[in-house]
């Protein structure tokens, strides 16, 4: 997929991140987070865009296989709550920046 095809964040975009699965698949471990671009600084939006680009660049690597693996679900909502873009990323292929963002929230995007 070319860069031009990557979703571009706007002020109305909302990015949602949640973790799923695992042997201990418990509701509280999903820790869903939502990042409304309107509430982010320009620099934070740029870093979030870079993460989206990085996830998109992973393409479709397939599943590493096996059972009880954990997966991140990243969803982009542009208008309303209907996803316009969604990716599932296996934990073993997850960019570190995504893991930090899921763990720490907007603080992981810097100022």
């Amino acid at each position: 997929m070319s860069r031009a095809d990557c979703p571009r964040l706007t002020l109305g975009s909302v990015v949602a991140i949640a973790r799923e699965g695992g042997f201990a698949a418990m509701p509280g471990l999903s820790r869903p987070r939502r990042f409304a671009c309107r509430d982010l600084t320009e620099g934070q939006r740029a870093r979030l865009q870079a993460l989206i680009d990085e996830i998109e660049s992973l393409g479709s690597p397939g599943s590493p296989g096996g059972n009880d693996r954990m997966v991140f679900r990243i969803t982009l909502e542009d208008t309303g709550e209907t996803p316009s873009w969604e990716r599932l990323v296996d934990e073993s292929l997850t960019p570190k920046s995504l893991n930090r963002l899921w763990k720490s929230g907007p603080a992981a995007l810097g100022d």
Partner: protein
Amino acid sequence: MTGMPTSSRLTAFMPPHVLERVASHGNARLKQCARNTLQADAQFRLRNASRPSARPADSPRPGQVARYIYTANRQQTLPGSLVREEGAPDSGDVAVDEAYQWLGATYRFYWEVFERHSIDDEGMALIGTVHYGEDYDNAFWNGAQMVFGDGDGELFNRFTAALEVVAHELTHGVIEREAGLIYADQSGALNESLADVFGVMVKQHHFEQTVDEADWLIGEGLLTERVNGRALRSMAHPGTAYDDPVLGKDPQPGHMDDFVQTASDNGGVHINSGIPNRAFYLAATRLGGFAWEAAGPVWLDALIDARLARDADFATFARLTIDRATARFGGGSEAERAVTQAWADVGVLP
């Protein structure tokens, strides 16, 4: 994936189970595309699994286990560094020695009860990696080996602490080789349930517990004292294992009336497994004695039955267990009645 939006922008990640369905049910062009992608996916998996030449030696003879325990040293590289292999003394590392002991107990169960020689029934080496990742709250089977995290210490203890967790992960290997149940929706929940069923039987077998003495808990001892819960799942009473401000409430149903429709976790494979889990518990407790004497063999017979399709649903598996109970114990036998009643009690069969 269930509930996955269908926009073309949402399809770059296509889970294997969806591809497999397209390969078997789509039109000619879609079938070919799906087959090509599955082939590429299989090549990807091979690259990421241990190469055969790199695998340690399998068991030299039936009845003898071959264990290899590695440490990932808090990294996420597999298999890591070898710490203890078959016949070596205690390493002094609790997680290493637990993995070694529980893999041995699991091998012994499959061998002594079913004369099954390891995961593939051909003596496959049992490879386990401990100390995987940092504060890692999980254990998994990657298609070639078992992997165990240390837990974060706040909510979870190390995942080797519970025998049934180790047995659960090893059993995923057995299921993969015997039935290849697709890891999504009902077949995925069945996959999870079978791993729990044999995991809990390994625990009962090791501690010589009858069905009435057993706790029927999965992951007992994994939760720290800070958590309000006894375990991760209860096979006897799904939905009651924990109710905690941080972890939430155990969402498992014990009856088809409460089946959870969700896209998350491959269609709720760790949630809806509560239904077949309870069916096994009901059948085993009706029959009494040790679970591995009657109910266990019926479930294994069904698991290895060639008629069990990769996308089997609960009802298909239920009918197969009744059929295998009849074949093993006779029509109208106590076992057949107990199995039939169990599936009716959880609403899978009328």
